[in-house]
């Protein structure tokens, strides 16, 4: 081995430099996360100083100079309501899709996975465009009016006359948008259930559905919950489509009272008002404060989701014969 590559003859500690620069690049993400939390905290400091905890519980939203007053409660609630509704609609659908794809023959499961993944590739803004010009009318005619006519007088969530740009429309479009995430992760998790488990169920004479109940769901429960929470994280952070469909109420009227009422989420109020907000006033710190709350909520949700999903995918084989 006398023919050495010239690089290795240099005396420079190149490998050390290489390793250190890789570590620096790797740590970049940690630095950025810390910086983001720090920046958002410090820039929103004035609003916490001014409103204190009332920023979380109040509902006034007034940017007029001299009468400034900010409370984020309606938007926090708006985010929680739309995201929960999206989960209620989206999770069962996604699990169903994952069930179908995980046991379909290859010639079906391949193309279907691609279609579902394309659903994820469509940008949020296009969901929004489709939402206001196509989906809104369909929702009004086929879902909201019928519900309003039947339940409007008795059930408060269906009261107020529907308009199409409201909490319900925003939630349904969110549900559509989180389907690809939840179904892709759920499918991975269902496939990770060992074949022997499925065979054990079939051996007992289980039908397909019974096999899912006996072998797949109990085994995959943690992972499926993780997948759903991952979807929740996305629903919480989703901005454009929601902004375009939720009707954008502000102040106390943005409190979700009926599903057919305009509302506002944390991300939509930021998208709507951020560039109008003057850095000199409290308006900008208020919006940054909303961003901070949104970020903390999203971090919590995603940390939980990742712990659950990775635990499930790690456990897979090792669970039996331990």
């Amino acid at each position, binding site marked *: 081995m006398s023919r*050495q590559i010239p*690089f*290795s003859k240099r005396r420079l500690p*190149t*490998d050390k430099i290489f390793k250190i*620069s*890789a570590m620096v*690049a*790797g740590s*970049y*993400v*940690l630095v950025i*996360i810390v910086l*983001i939390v720090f*920046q958002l905290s410090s*820039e929103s400091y004035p609003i916490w100083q001014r409103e204190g905890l009332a920023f979380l519980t109040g509902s006034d939203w007034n940017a007029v100079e001299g009468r400034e007053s900010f409370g984020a409660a309606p938007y926090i609630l708006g985010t929680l309501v739309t995201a929960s509704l999206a989960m209620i609609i989206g999770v069962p*659908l996604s699990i*169903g*899709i994952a069930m*179908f794809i995980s046991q379909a023959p290859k010639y079906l499961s391949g193309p*279907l996975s*691609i*279609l579902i993944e*394309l*659903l*994820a*590739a*469509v*940008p*949020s*803004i*296009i969901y*929004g465009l*489709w939402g206001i*010009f*196509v*989906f809104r009318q369909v929702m009004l005619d086929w879902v909201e009016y019928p519900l309003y006519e039947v339940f409007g007088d008795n059930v408060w969530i269906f009261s107020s006359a529907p308009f199409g740009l409201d909490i319900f429309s925003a939630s349904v479009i969110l549900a559509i948008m989180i389907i690809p995430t939840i179904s*892709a*992760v759920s*499918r*991975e998790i269902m496939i990770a259930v060992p074949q022997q488990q499925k065979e054990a169920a079939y051996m007992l004479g289980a039908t*397909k*559905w*019974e096999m899912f109940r006996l072998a797949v769901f109990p085994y995959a429960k943690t992972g499926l919950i993780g997948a759903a929470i991952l979807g929740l*994280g*996305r629903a919480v*952070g989703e901005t*454009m489509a929601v902004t*375009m469909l939720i009707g954008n109420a502000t102040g106390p009227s943005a409190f979700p009272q009926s599903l057919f009422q305009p509302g506002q989420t944390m*991300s939509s109020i*930021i*998208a709507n008002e*951020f*560039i109008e907000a003057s850095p000199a006033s409290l308006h900008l710190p208020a*919006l940054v404060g909303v*961003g901070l709350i*949104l*970020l903390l909520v*999203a971090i919590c949700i*995603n940390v939980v989701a990742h712990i659950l999903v990775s635990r499930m995918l790690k456990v897979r084989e090792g669970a039996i014969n331990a």
Partner: protein
Amino acid sequence: MMSSSQKRAEYRLLFKQNVGGRLVVDKIMMGIVFGCVIAAVIPLGSILIEVFKNGISAISIEFLTQVPGAIGSGEGGIGPAIQGTLIIIGMSSMIGVPIGVMSGIFLAEFGDNRLGRTVRFFNDVFMEFPSIVLGIFAFLVIVLVLGHFSLWAGAFALSLIMFPIVARTTEESLKMVPMTYREAGIALGLKKWVITFRIVLSAAKSGMITGILLSVGRIGGETAPLIMTVLGSSQFFSGVDSPMDALPLRIWRMSLLPYDSAQMQGWGAALVLIIIILAINITVRYYFAKKSKKGNILSKLMGMRKK
């Protein structure tokens, strides 16, 4: 033992003999499951059809190349928006790809320790950060400091979406390169960085390109972080220090205008955007169809994207 076999015959009589009912339940459940698939495919179909149907009438050479006309006039085009989207993608990649690739190298080659696990975990969590928060961050550290909206701020915000995706895909691709490649390099007496850059990275190229393309597809459609960074403009490129337009921003502005002609232009811009993004996705799939056996990684990567 005779009694035992009698007992078993008796047990059998206790079983529900009618299996048909269970099969019906099974059929119904599987029908519902199939219904779920249909329910998800319908919106996708509707979106694609509507965008093509409405967008195609707006498309013309003029529309693709001109600056926007007066509001509501229905004249002009989305030239600056297309240009802006391409420039922002290029600039974000300049920042995001090197950091992502190095970070992926760290995770794959030096990541089997506490720091590695921490980075991997937070990388995954960071990938799910609401993009609008990244926009706020870029606004605070660039726009507010420099005092004006700029392409740089937008590119920085989007690079934050990009690099974790690139990092993870790089890591996954590097891990798929067989150990023997590295051992061969060591046997030749090569330094680690030479082995990594010359041998391992070139073996992992296709996976990394896929990751980069996926992240490009993702940031190409991002809107929220651009609102507070590049702002939007109706002029062609005039420097990385000034505001710029982008397709998603243009779609947003157009769709909010009360004029039919503006809305048609919005659809036209949406068609251009969706063609760019579908083209990227299809390229990725085609690329992968050739390099088979990596379907698993692909689905993992696909699962990482959002919005």
